[in-house]
């Protein structure tokens, strides 16, 4: 195992857990409707800045935990979050050199894709009732991105 040295494994575990808690925190209905996918934000961060720390396994497991948590069909969020992680990891060299604002645009696109995947699977499994508010969530997520990136960035030392 040559990859484990210097990789912020503990930081990944901790932040993914924290994101899960944020995702599951009971909120008033209006806030609930616009709560962005924190787990995707965290996963994008690690995908860009430490693509080998959690790999795709950690995002996938986080998504699966979210499925169990929310009572969705198993694999729904797991697939969506893994996809988000994969895209961030594939483009990480380019994204690393961009400013936070530029990255926000990318985050917006990926979060929309995530919403779209979840929405598609919900439709496929027969839960197609959905509020239009869900399409606001990626925008909120993109606006939060700089803060999330700065906060998560403090959990590990960047080279």
């Amino acid at each position, binding site marked *: 195992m040559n990859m484990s040295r210097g990789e912020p494994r503990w930081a990944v575990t901790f932040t993914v857990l924290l994101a899960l808690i944020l995702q*599951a*925190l009971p909120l008033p*209905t209006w806030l609930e409707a616009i709560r962005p996918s924190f787990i995707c934000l965290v996963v994008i961060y690690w995908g860009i800045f430490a693509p080998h720390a959690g790999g795709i396994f950690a995002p996938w497991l986080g998504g699966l935990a979210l499925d*169990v948590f929310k009572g969705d069909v198993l694999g729904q969020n797991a*697939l969506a979050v*893994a*996809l988000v992680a994969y895209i961030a990891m*594939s483009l990480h060299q380019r994204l690393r050199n961009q400013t936070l604002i530029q990255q926000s645009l990318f985050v917006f696109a990926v979060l929309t894709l995530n919403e779209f995947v979840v929405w598609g*699977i919900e439709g496929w499994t027969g839960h197609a009732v959905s509020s239009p508010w869900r399409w606001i969530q990626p925008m909120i997520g993109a606006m939060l991105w700089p803060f999330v990136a700065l906060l998560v960035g403090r959990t590990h030392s960047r080279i």
Partner: protein
Amino acid sequence: VAVFGSGTRSLGGRGPSFGFRFFCYAVLSVVLMFYDRRGGWLDTARYGMQAAVYPLQLAVNSPSAAWRWLQESFATREALQKEVDTLRNQLRDQQLMTLRQAALESENATLRGLTTALPEVIEKRLIGEVINVEVSTLRQRLLVNRGGNSGVYKAQPVVTGDGVLGQVYRIGPFSSEIILITDSEHALPVQVLRSGVRSIALGTGRATALELPYVPQNYDVKVGDVLVTSGLDGVFPFGLPVGRITKVDRDPTQPLAQIYAAPLARVESDREVLFVWARPGHPAAPATPEALAVEAPKPAPANPKPKPAPRKPVEPAADPATTTPATDSPAAAAPATDDSATGAPAPAEPAQPTPEAPQPAPAEVPTT
């Protein structure tokens, strides 16, 4: 699109590429979804996973739990005194009702020719505490701190002191998820206590409303009527209060009336729920699948499972126009079978279809 691969190759030499790994996880996810939809062995896995996320769920809800605890600990003396007074009044009212009930039950038993009154249909109950409430238009669920380890089972009825709350949707070892009757995916067979009209109470996604579709215009349903479970779903025992009719819209151009009801249980604010176990074999116990299946050959005295009959007397149907759909009429013979077995004269005349006839029409049983 071509860029997707380029980043991965430069980091090569560390196992398979991101693309390949993602592909594996994607396939795994789809397989999971497929089997989770089908049910079966994944339910067991899910049971274990529920236990794994339970600490997290507790952690997430600890702030609100702590706040409630604080509020309760620092409640003023007056507030507590007021609560005690309310509870004392409630107790007195209910004692009065119980007094009457004992008399009614023995009268009922005499009428049926039984020597002793039947025991209560609810055999056992278990109190659970609500950990998390999820109330939105998409979902109306509760997370409760009782699970498989306490004997809770899937599709178990859950009630509060006021009425039916919902049923167990998913279980873990220490927790269970309850789908409320107001969830838009829930349907509950009900009947109007006063007139015996049967329908299905569909959840609307709003915590205060149930919808009763498929009730023809001329059926006897009024605002203020109490709805009780009809027991035809094989889940709930007969006669648990569900809701009260709030709105009846009769548009003469439509074949069906538009009827809405409000649930009696306060689905959003109750902190304690009751899991109930019905007494098997009791007349008011939920209908079993076998009992529901024997409709095709006319249910004569040679009924293989005399899913018996006279339920607690609902108020007798006042006028014949108010009776239940014609599909029920063959079932009206069923009470007679039970009574002939005990040798007593049948008190109910078979000519008039009684609303509380137990043999259900299978068409009314929804798939919840």
